[in-house]
């Protein structure tokens, strides 16, 4: 059991802005919460490769094809950094992966929506990565050293993800009638799911207060969401895209944009597994994992044989 003295000392370190490192003492609950949060983040990067990967072979120019491939590759890298960070807490990557393939570990629900047209790829860059950057910029200041460092590296690499999406979407929004239609349609479909990425309202977010107390997060879901909306409204306007929310209006008093009610029923239903692509996403990852088994085994066996040779 964690003693009160240990908990107090730990809290003092957090309040002083110190970073917690893997070998430091930490409350069991802090460790658990971090494993949950970091692995969810890692799973999201990995599952996030699928909706975008869906378009790699169909991108309409070589330049954009390379951009997309590089971006999907970065996501594998980000998943890798995050799994490594999580492993410092005493779990293995295998356990973590099997937890979401066979268990019920969660990942960001946004990736349970399909990418129907190429404009979806642009919108994922602009909105989904834009939202992820808001979140990850905060997490780069997280109290847990390995998590903060992983996010710092991710943020550095990810700024191009948003930029390329916004740039190409701008071209489509100002392009031919067909391109404009695809662009607007993609925004219509991705807008609300993107706002849900920040998680439930603070009043419905049981973990939030604790994560903030421990400095894992430094801002609440609603604060981050508001920051994102404020920024995105202007960006949409600049390229002639309409955000699908008739209630969106500037609030002189608060200095922020007010927005309509988020369809939380949909959010919870997708989180619980009933989304358009939930089954497909898990199936694809499961196939990759199971079909990779013989490869991982072979390499390990080869290494074992070489070691034996060396020893004899």
């Amino acid at each position: 059991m964690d003693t009160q003295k240990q908990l107090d000392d730990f809290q003092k370190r957090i309040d002083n802005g110190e970073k917690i490192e893997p070998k430091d003492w930490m409350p069991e609950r802090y460790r658990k919460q971090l494993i949950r949060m970091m692995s969810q983040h890692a799973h999201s990067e990995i599952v996030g490769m699928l909706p975008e990967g869906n378009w790699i072979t169909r991108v309409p120019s070589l330049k954009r094809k390379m951009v997309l491939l590089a971006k999907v590759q970065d996501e594998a890298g980000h998943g890798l950094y995050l799994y490594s960070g999580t492993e410092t807490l005493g779990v293995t990557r295998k356990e973590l992966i099997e937890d979401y393939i066979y268990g019920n570990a969660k990942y960001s629900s946004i990736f349970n929506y399909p990418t129907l047209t190429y404009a979806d790829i642009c919108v994922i860059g602009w909105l989904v990565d834009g939202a992820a950057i808001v979140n990850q910029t905060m997490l780069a200041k997280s109290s847990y050293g390995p998590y903060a460092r992983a996010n710092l590296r991710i943020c550095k690499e990810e700024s191009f993800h948003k930029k390329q999406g916004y740039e190409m979407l701008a071209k489509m929004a100002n392009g031919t009638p067909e391109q404009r239609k695809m662009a607007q349609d993609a925004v219509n479909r991705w807008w609300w799911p993107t706002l849900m990425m920040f998680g439930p309202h603070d009043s419905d977010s049981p973990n939030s207060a604790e994560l903030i107390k421990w400095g894992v997060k430094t801002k609440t879901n609603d604060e981050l969401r508001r920051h994102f909306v404020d920024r995105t409204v202007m960006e949409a306007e600049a390229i002639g895209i309409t955000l699908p929310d008739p209630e969106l209006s500037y609030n002189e008093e608060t200095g922020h944009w007010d927005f309509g009610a988020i369809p939380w029923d949909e959010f919870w239903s997708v989180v619980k597994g009933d989304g358009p692509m939930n089954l497909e996403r898990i199936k694809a990852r499961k196939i990759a994992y199971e079909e990779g088994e013989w490869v991982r085994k072979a390499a390990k066996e080869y290494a074992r044989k070489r070691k034996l040779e060396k020893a004899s």
Partner: protein
Amino acid sequence: MSTFDTIPQTRQEALVEVLLRLADDRLILGHRLSEWAGHGPELEEDLALANIALDMIGHASALYEYAAKLDNKPDEDYFAYFRDDIDFKNIALAELPRGDFAFTIARQFLFSLFSYFLYKDLIEIVEDEQFNGMLQKHFKEIKYHLRHSREWVLRLGDGTDESKSRIQNAFDNIWMYTGEMFEIDEPFKAAIEHNLYTKVAKWQSEWRTFVNSTLTEATLTVPDYEQYMFTGARSGRHTEYLGHLLAQMQFLRRSYPDAEWK
């Protein structure tokens, strides 16, 4: 000789032909590798395969760009998106479906090794500065592709029984598509005249020695070099696979050719 083939008459025509042949090989094989993104056997390998795919598509793009300039075409995308399968000049080896990881590795190893010898040789021969510059730049990456695929041939060959049988099967099945790499047809002959291509037979035995020693080290059986070899893809006689690959790759660009997509 295929229906449309014309032998390049000038140095410039020969150069365009060589650029397109090299580029088509790389685009199509890069496309196959890119199909792994998100589906690799381990995260680290997902990154590695995507890296190689990116290199190859990048090489193709640079070669196309130069060909477009010489041939008065709008840009590199013209060649990738607006030609039909019978106009593509890649060897069939590149277009075969992705297969399992063993097939991917076997193909990559044979192709990277061929590219290694080819580029090394061309760097010595090609006088065209821009072309030679690309060859030198891409050669560095090819060396890495070769190292990566060779290491995996060893691990799969001398790994478990399952991996061994998978990679052995892969080599056995792909062997009949290796002959095209060493073919010298009329367009290549014309290019050789202008020091834009090389007599690949010069180092074919070296290529084989390297293949043999790697496969032997991997405890694999080297397939018979003197078997039936597929031919004709360079002049448009492809397998059925290419049409489907192109249908996917080109559909959006061709549906809206006047739109801006770059």
